[in-house]
């Protein structure tokens, strides 16, 4: 550290950290605190310390098993799809052909659509009475009468998956694309001289180089999939039955429907623990020993 650096550290960090820290640590501390309280807004006079009661209640609740299954199903279907499709898209968009610039723009378009609206349009496409999907299948003769897709368990889940992919693909694709474009051309030239063919080149150079990006995309899409609430809320509202009621849907219900802030916070903290465990698992699996976040 040189003379005057201390002053610069203050100048450099104060603006950013004074936005970030109050909105990071106070909320976390508050949520942790509330998760240890009996805190039910319906009985505001009974707020009291409850230890781990909320956690136990949440873990043994009637919805725990079903919502875990729903969440795991959703994550297991969407995350691999998101990673593979965005990788494929980036591969297409990194080719050199006429109109590739336009296509790169096009892929980012869903990013600009407000989430409520993208949820609404997908819901409308698969609507039981006026949906174009039904009309299309019927005109092909594949179905005799309109099917209420959103009232059927797996179809409803698949509609959610489609909407989720449509909404979430832009950012991972962008990351992979940027990653691919940072691969030095010499690597490919050297491989060509060594006699490597398309697939071998892709496997040894592209995929290896993209490993840190793979990590970011895997972490990002897993978090997004675990936290998916808006789409579920707009498209299926957890139904049919509770088939698509994922954990974050119950976190919301506990908080804003049942007004039980204690249980909602406990549930949220359980989700955080699982997220952290998954992130560590990804680091292990992809063997990106130490991703360089900083010097």
């Amino acid at each position, binding site marked *: *550290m040189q003379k005057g650096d*201390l002053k*610069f*550290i203050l100048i*450099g*960090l104060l*603006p*950013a*950290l004074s*936005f*970030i820290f*109050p909105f*990071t640590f106070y*909320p976390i501390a508050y*949520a942790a605190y*509330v998760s240890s309280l009996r805190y039910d807004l319906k009985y505001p006079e009974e707020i009291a310390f409850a230890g781990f009661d909320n956690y136990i209640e949440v873990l043994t609740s009637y919805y725990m098993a079903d919502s875990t299954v729903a969440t795991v199903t959703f994550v297991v279907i969407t995350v691999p799809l998101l990673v593979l499709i965005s990788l494929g898209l980036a591969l*297409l968009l990194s080719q050199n*052909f006429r109109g590739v*610039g336009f*296509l*790169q723009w*096009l*892929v*980012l*378009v869903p*990013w*600009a*659509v*407000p*989430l*409520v*609206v993208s949820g*609404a*349009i997908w819901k409308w*496409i698969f609507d039981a009475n*006026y*949906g*174009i999907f039904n*009309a299309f299948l019927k005109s092909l003769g594949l179905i005799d009468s309109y099917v209420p897709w959103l009232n059927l368990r797996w179809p409803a889940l698949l509609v959610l998956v489609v909407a989720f992919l*449509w909404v979430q693909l832009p950012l991972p694709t962008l990351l992979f694309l*940027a990653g691919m*474009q*940072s691969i*030095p051309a010499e690597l490919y030239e050297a491989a060509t001289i060594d006699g490597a063919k398309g697939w071998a080149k892709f496997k040894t150079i592209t995929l290896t180089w993209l490993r840190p990006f793979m990590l970011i995309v895997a972490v990002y899409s897993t978090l997004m999939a675990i*936290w998916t609430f*808006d789409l579920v809320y*707009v498209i299926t509202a957890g139904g049919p039955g509770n088939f698509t009621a994922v954990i*974050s849907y119950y*976190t*919301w219900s506990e908080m804003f429907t049942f007004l039980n802030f204690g249980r*909602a*916070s406990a549930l*949220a*903290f359980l989700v*955080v623990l699982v997220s*952290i465990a998954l992130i560590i698992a990804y680091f292990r699996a992809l063997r990106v020993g130490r991703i*360089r*976040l*900083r*010097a």
Partner: protein
Amino acid sequence: MGTGYRVAIVVASVVVAFWVLFPILWMFSISIQTEPEIHSAPPSLWPAQPNYFNYWFIFDTSSAIEARLQESGRLTFLPAVARWFPNALVNSVIVGLIITGINLIAATLASYTFTRIRFRGSGLLFYMSVAGRLIPPVAIVVPYYIIIQNFFGLNLLDTLIAVILVHAAFTLPINIWILNTYLLAIPSDIEDAARVDGYGRLETLFKVVLPVIKPGLVAIGIISFMVSWGEFFFSFMVTQTQLSRTLPVIVGFMAAQPYKPVGILMAGGLVAMLPALVIIAIFRRYLIRGLVAGAVR
């Protein structure tokens, strides 16, 4: 390259274009239909007579309602909240631009400090500043509300400042992370030379570093704007009257009406996405180059 390759490219491009465009075009088609047309089976792919009432409605609600009344003599249910659409558009632009500005200044200063100055606790501070993004939004929305209600003695609920504070806290960590990786990939030799020549830290940052990391700056600028432009949940929680609400919130309200005017919702959604689309179109190149230093093509 062979014909097979070319055919594959064309087929893939068409599939991708269809996948992205179909819902958007369908939105547009619905937005120029009347509600009876929208609620008919089978749906018409394209209305025989395009009707721009829905657009008129979101931009000039009162006169559109009046015209509808005179025309049919009765009022079907229409979401009056659409009256606030133009106001929300302005709010969203203001918030988006300020968030972009805050990120450009604060994230640049922070990443420069994190990557170029070695000091004890720098790593810890960095991890502390990105850690907040591991918490599911629904868990922290209530504490956010409490902070905004009493922000160092001020009640900021229902002000644009509240929305700005929340969005800044949301965007800064990710942008600092992106800029950090960007800066780390750039050798600091030139900066060291400048320092030897007697430049101060700030001078080095402005005259030497900024020109080099320009693509990175554009990338984080766009990401900030886009995140702020689309954010619904927190903007909804910290605002109370329509006056301070942003576009996604107003559009969300239109979607939450008991009788859902699908056409108006789609029109609102399309208008809401236009500015963002233009921005991506202009800055696309930078966006890709700016995410990773060394991405040059």
